[in-house]
């Protein structure tokens, strides 16, 4: 059994995995971008382990984190790449791009991927990210 991660929203679930959150996680401080639906609901900020509990390979550490991007460009590029391979993926992953500011008080973040700009945030307990994000543009036109 892995060490627990006290103070995180899904600490109980994450305790089932080794190195969860990954040891190199830190606080993130800056603008962040996430795919959401319009209107934004709390479900837009549910981790996929909670959203799709029966789906294969979401029962992992990442399943209890939220995906963000460091820029609108990287968020849109990844979305377009996925929509090319799976045309209906917007039904599952989101239709709009939202922008917000994430600070270390929101949780622990993995280092952003240098190529894709993607990072995962493991939220602290009591955080309501829905209130921090606004839609800036549609992803599907």
């Amino acid at each position: 059994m892995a060490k627990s991660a006290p103070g995180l929203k899904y600490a109980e679930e994450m305790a089932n995995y080794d190195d969860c959150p990954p040891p190199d996680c830190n606080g993130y401080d800056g603008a962040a971008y996430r795919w959401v639906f319009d209107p934004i609901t709390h479900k837009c900020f549910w981790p996929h382990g909670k959203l799709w509990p029966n789906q294969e390979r979401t029962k992992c550490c990442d399943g209890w984190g939220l995906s963000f991007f460091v820029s609108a460009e990287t968020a849109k590029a990844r979305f377009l790449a996925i929509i090319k391979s799976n045309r209906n993926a917007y039904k599952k992953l989101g239709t709009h791009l939202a922008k917000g500011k994430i600070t270390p008080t929101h949780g622990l973040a993995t280092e952003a991927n240098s190529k894709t700009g993607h990072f995962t945030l493991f939220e602290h307990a009591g955080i309501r990210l829905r209130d921090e994000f606004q839609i800036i543009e549609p992803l599907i036109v």
Partner: protein
Amino acid sequence: MLKLTGTKFEQLPVSGLKWVSDLQYFDGPLVSYFRHARTDDAYIKYWVDCDDDIDRWMWVRVTENDILRLSNKVETLDRVIPRKCQDDFVYFVDVGPKSQSVVLIYITDIPQEYTPDKDAVLSPERTNNDKTFPILIEEDLEPQDLTDIPRVFRQAYSILYLLSPKHVVSREKFLSHPWRGGFSSVHFYNEVESIVPDRAQFAFQKIQYASPGFMRFSLDRPTAEMVSHCVGLISQRGSEARRAYHSLGSYIHTNKLNKLKRQDPGWASHKTELVRRTKALLESLEIDKPTEVIAMAPRPFEAAKIARSIFKRLNKLATFQEDGLITLPKD
């Protein structure tokens, strides 16, 4: 979701499928590679649709060659699904929280909405466990090529592994190796390969001799990708590596250094220029701290020969690739 009309099954009529890897993943798998435990057939499980309760997947039997080309980004998904399907049909599986339903549909009846868009490139995430690398065969190879390609690749891979700044211990061991006498490439590469640690040793896994086909090796994947990257440096237009190689070769040839006796006092006057041109060649191949590599050799002349031998191996692979015989995947 679209209504699908076809032959219904209570469950997928193919059993024993084992997950191998995800070829496209975002907050869950979207395109996954499975293998049949008994027949070793390759299958793609492809996410196509959902509603509030159900996820819909398409199962497509393909070839391992197609999987390798997809996962190494040398083939686009729309060129594989559905046209490279090994059967005349695919299975659609609707998976709900408590039940699933299966429909067999002929390839010609697959809705366009459930096929990939043009030029869809997958972005498989590499894991630390990925210790394989393929050389993709594009045309019929001569028997000699089948021997030469893996041998040359193995030699280039081994030397680049030892020169990588990521492998501090191995690099240190290599640079402090007591090289004696003149430079013999056979002797040199035999020793180089023996210094590579067991966990990173290059080994043949599988060959599918066809065009297209593949050779697959177990090795340290980042180093294999470095070989591929260096081959790209040589192949690019106006290659600095080619220029540096010819500059060094020209100096050796013009000054007849291959015929100069080891004890000849004339060597002293060539030292600076040999070091400068060798350093330029190593730098053009993005080899870390070239001065350390040059210092490893008994004399600058041997260092020049080592640098030229690395280029020759990479250039041979570049020629195979430029001739359209093979493709070396890049990261």
